[in-house]
């Protein structure tokens, strides 16, 4: 049940009604949210099919429910470690406990996500030297949302270790924090201090907050189902599928379209997640801040997938020394963060390459700043050039991100640079959607705010009419087949 589906909308309405019916009472309130979260996550496993079809055997149940069991096991281990952290002040023990948490979480991620990559790499590198490496794939299951789960898990134990989060939360609260349904699949990565502290407060929802949340959800659906999906199916998938069949200009348009698709896809998802959380009185951190208007690459990363960027900053870059070390070490830290951040996106070396290229570019910018000194806010021309240069770099590196492997990426680049003219295969709908995507991204925020305000001022029946009209518009304009979120795979 993906969050842009009708089932999800109905699910949210049902949970909304139940939640607000019992919201004044802690345990019923927690119970509604936890059951809803468990039901939603169970929907991503084969358990419902198994049960409905009646093929219930212990072995089949275990296999189908394995993703849920993995999460439950992870939460249990972390909860015990957090409780241990709360009960001791001895630095050595505390360090040991937090290290155990990090190791167990990263071990889970490595085991389920990266073991196959390691095997393939070992086979390719060591195989020719006669070293025996398992030739068969592991066929390990990758639970949906594991990458986000692990990062959030680590953030909680580390925050408890650092004294930024409380260790006094119950197991149910801990479990709900990890599985909270608006964000369980693809984030945003929410810190414990931002979410768990609110579990114990009686929630409120003013008409304005509720209106904003609904408006946010509607915007997210439009972003995802109209802009992202039309670009994806209209130009990105065909061209990336067979770049040789398209002109260089069409390949370039597809690369730009993919860059926009990715933003509208993921930010649309984030809008829905933030909006749904808002309906239950929770405030999630923002995940995007119009990233393609960034004037340099550092700014881009401060505007793109902000919950991940800030996580990498707080839990990787700063522990490595951040900016406060020698210049070579700062550059090393940057590279390390970007390569690992790249690899976080998928168990394939092309993601590491993608991250490394960004790392090199960030290092170059950093060196330039060291050499020239960081410039004050640039003028409009320099800002424009900066935006263009940053966007170009992002577009070019996205090719590696989107292509199935490096060979395909190479073929795509070769085709894009071959200088073959012609845009015959870019249909009018794609042009329109590209224009909409670019305009929507560059519009001043106040236009968005004023539109939201206008929606908030409407009486409930009029809001309902607007929402239904948006739904009808989505139905008419979207591609018939809704596509899963791009970030679902990460």
């Amino acid at each position, binding site marked *: 049940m993906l969050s842009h589906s009708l089932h999800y909308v109905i699910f949210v309405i049902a949970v909304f009604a139940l939640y607000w019916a019992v*919201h004044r009472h802690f345990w019923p309130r927690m119970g509604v949210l936890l059951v809803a979260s468990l039901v939603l996550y169970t929907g991503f496993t084969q358990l419902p099919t198994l049960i*409905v079809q009646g093929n219930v055997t212990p072995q089949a149940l275990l296999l189908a429910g394995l993703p849920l069991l993995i999460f439950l096991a992870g939460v249990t281990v972390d909860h015990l470690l957090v409780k241990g952290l709360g009960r001791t002040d001895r630095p050595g023990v505390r360090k040991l406990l937090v290290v155990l948490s990090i190791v167990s979480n990263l071990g889970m991620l490595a085991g389920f996500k990266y073991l196959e990559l390691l095997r393939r790499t070992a086979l390719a590198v060591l195989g020719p030297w006669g070293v025996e490496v398992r030739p068969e794939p592991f066929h390990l299951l990758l639970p949906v949302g594991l990458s986000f789960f692990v990062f959030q898990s680590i953030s909680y134990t580390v925050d408890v270790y650092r004294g930024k989060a409380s260790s006094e939360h119950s197991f149910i609260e801990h479990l709900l924090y990890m599985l909270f349904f608006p964000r369980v699949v693809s984030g945003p990565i929410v810190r414990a201090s931002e979410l768990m502290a609110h579990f114990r407060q009686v929630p409120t929802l003013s008409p304005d907050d*509720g209106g904003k949340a609904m408006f946010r959800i509607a915007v997210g659906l439009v972003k995802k189902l109209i802009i992202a999906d039309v670009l994806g199916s209209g130009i990105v*998938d065909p061209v990336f599928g067979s770049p040789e*069949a398209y002109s260089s200009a069409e390949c370039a348009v597809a690369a730009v379209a993919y860059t926009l698709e990715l933003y509208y896809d993921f930010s649309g998802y984030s809008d829905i997640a933030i909006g749904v959380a808002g309906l239950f009185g929770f405030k999630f951190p923002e995940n995007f801040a119009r990233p393609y208007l960034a004037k340099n690459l550092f700014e881009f990363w401060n505007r793109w997938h902000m919950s991940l960027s800030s996580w990498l900053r707080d839990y990787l870059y700063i522990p490595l020394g951040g900016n406060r070390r020698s210049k070579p070490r700062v550059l090393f830290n940057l590279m390390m963060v970007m390569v690992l951040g790249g690899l976080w996106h998928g168990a394939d070396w092309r993601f590491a390459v993608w991250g490394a290229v960004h790392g090199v570019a960030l290092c170059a910018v950093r060196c330039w700043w060291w050499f020239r000194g960081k410039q004050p806010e640039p003028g409009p021309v320099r800002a424009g050039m900066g935006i263009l240069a940053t966007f170009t770099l992002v577009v070019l590196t996205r090719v590696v991100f989107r292509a199935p492997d490096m060979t395909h990426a190479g073929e795509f680049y070769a085709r894009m640079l071959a200088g073959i003219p012609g845009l015959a295969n870019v249909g009018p709908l794609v042009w329109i959607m590209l224009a909409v995507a670019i305009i929507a991204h560059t519009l001043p925020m106040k236009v968005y705010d004023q539109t939201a305000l206008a929606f908030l001022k409407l009486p*409930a029946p009029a809001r309902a009419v607007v929402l239904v009209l948006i739904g009808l518009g989505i*139905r008419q304009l*979207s591609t018939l087949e809704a*596509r899963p979120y791009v970030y679902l795979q990460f």
Partner: protein
Amino acid sequence: MSLKPTSTGWTLAFTVLLTVGLSLAPLPEKFRPLPSLRQEGSLGPKLVALALPASLRGVKAPRPPADTMAPDAPPSALAEADTAGADTDPQAGPDVGEAPAVPGIGLEELSAPTLANALELEALRERMGAKHVEIELNCRKARADGACEEDGLAPLMRALGDLRSDTRRTPVRVVHLGDSLIASDYITDVVRDRLQERFGSGGPGFLYIHRLASAGRATRAGTASTDGWKMERLVDTHWPKDRVGWTGVAFSTSGPSQGTRFSVEGSRQAELFFLAQPANGSVQVSVDGKPTQRIQTRAFGPKAEAAFARLKLPEGAKTLTLTASGKTELHGVSLESGTPGVVYDTVGLLGGMAEVYLRAQPAAFRAQLRHRKPSLVVLMVGGNEAFFLSRERTTVDEVRAQMKALVSRVRTSVPDAACLVMSPIDAGVRTMSGELVTRRHSAQVAAVFREEARQGGCAYYDTLAAMGGEGSALKWLESGLMLEDLVHPRVRGSNLLGHLFDLALQRAFARTHPPRIPADMSGLQNATPALKRTFESLARRESGAKLRVGIAQLGASHTAAHFFSDTVRGALTKRFGDAGRGFIAAGKPSPRLEAAHVARTLDGPWTVEDAKGAAPGGLWGLTGIRAVGAPGASLGISFCEGCDGRKDNTPGRLDLYALDAPDAAAPEIRVDGELIAPEAPPPEPLTKPTVRIRSFPVTGPAHTVQVTVPEGGGSATVLGASLEYDTPGLVYDALGLPGATAFTARDMDAPALDAQLTARRPDLLVFWYGTNEAELPGLDAGALRQDYAALVSRLRKATGAECLLIGPTDRLQQDADGRWTEAPSLGKVLATLPQVAKDAGCAYWSARAAMGGERSMQRWQRQPSALGHVDGVHLTQAGYAVLANAFVKDLMAAYESTKKGGEPTASAAGAP
């Protein structure tokens, strides 16, 4: 939470009410948020379906789509449209042109390897619930009284019939136009390969200058220097107007010279499709790198028009290179073998639909189609039409009008050709709720196509029903036969579609051209109980028992050629161990023995006699041969010449088979150069010739026996020699006499033959007579049955071996006009030999069925690498190997089945 009128709760409640209300209201669909609520049926289940994800309703959770498209996917799958389910009743037969049922489902004429693949696809069909659907023939020409004079496929069937009867000297061409489903050629290659196997290959047919897309296969195109060619397709937004015909794509260049290369092995004719235009362009033709001619593409008039240039390719040509200079536009190249056979052109345009093919310039479409002289034009579109209908980008009336126009254009362009319209296949969509559902509108399109085919006089094939009807795409997806786009079948699914269409064509052909000789059963028949003991011995051998398994194959030239038996021996000894080469008849040097590392020499005055035509009762060696040497003559047989892999200390036994007679000289025998002491004379003087078998122990793998007839005495007769090692394994004797029949073996002196054969210690006797009997005009089938059965029974009794009969290969002969016809008694032999096997308690394997049955010899002759000999009787070395592999496969399948404790199947490939 506040419950003011502006509150969130009220907003949500109003939204839900408005959504449900509008959905149930009698409004146009586009104004109803949830159109499914107003569809037929009670509201409850529909609300449940909306509220509960598919997984909670017992439907498998959708798999997230693959990050990238599978390698076998046609590109731009999402731009490509799809097809949907239909209300078509797959059980409902065709309403027009239905003919009497033919036995089987159309598998009868496939060779063993193809049959094996076909049966795998049949098993897949069963699993998927796909169906054999008959082609609706319709009527292309009606009499004045309204009765149908000629059905929609008649021109094709006539042409194929002419090929079959060898009265046609030109190829039978099929032009198959379609969408992305055939762009990768996975459906059509099955049809092409099968048709070419049954009716001969006329060559690859039409190929593009370069592949149209990087994904999928590149089998239907040359390899061009892509950067310099401009490719314009009818499917493009700005398609090449007024230039391109049904070939659909223009490859133009106007700058520096641009080339393209084709592999032309086996082709003798090529034809360039190009645009003659008022510009200075030319194409340099090179074959294997050598320039042969230059084609000017300049038009004589002011207008551009489709043009053609025929090129002859020298025998053995490997590559054809076309280098275009100046302003040139090429559309493709056709390659043909120049021999009668089927040529199957495919043009698959991504996004292809009837409207797209109508974009072709009518004159060019007509000129190109007429030039091709097709016997059949297939139109396979509809997926995109269904897609556009679902998006309201077109209407049913438009779809109808477009198909009507396309059918009309085809019929008027080539009025003598048959045409066939195929329905779109089933497809699915992933809805916004993540649910997989059948795509709508395909049934509608199929119904329109069916009607337009009927009205236009074209045949119609309901691919949708064949696939399994509505909902089959989802089933195919679950079974990995469809891509995640739910539109395009994967390779295996495409193969299944091709398989179903091919068999439908074959059944249609079989109705108009029933086989002259009833098809015999393919595969190994009656393996249980006939081969029970042999299989037990093989199983024990395989599990490590130290025993020898002997197989002796008696027969005519197929056996004497050694190619068949060498392949069988190689396969069996590889699995069960090699216990030696076995028996070699005395005779002249023969290159056919080289593969088995055997050499023969005859020096001096030798007379090699054989049993054919000899008086009954003669003493002959196991192959029906004897070598009679006059004084001073010398004969040698060397085993394992140049072979390796066997240890030098392998102990073995070399046997010499000879005739001893009252006046015969005692020959001087040397084994590996060492003189063997003469044998003691028999206690009683000989009164008549007697078979003598002398056995010599040897060590090591390679041995030679040399027999010299001493000077000054009488003659000596040598029958042959055998070499066996004292190691566990299998010995496979090939005992063949060219031109022999079962009657030949019957007339040989029984005690002598029985004694020699007994000495070979066979566990299994394989008899392969019948091919020469088929040539006898007045064959007495009763006598054949009786005598052959008696011979087999006698030899079985003498040796204690089990038996297996191999039926004759397909045998043809040329009439006075040079046309090939079946040998006169082939039918009788084919009918009799299974009876013989039954009478004698033998297993039976039909070589002709394994070749593909009716006229298979002709098809084997016409293979690019000929499998059938030009004499219509024998096979080439490659042909014998193919046949032997089929035999081994069937034999081992029966063995495996018995080993597992079950009844052996008729065949690895099975019997239709």
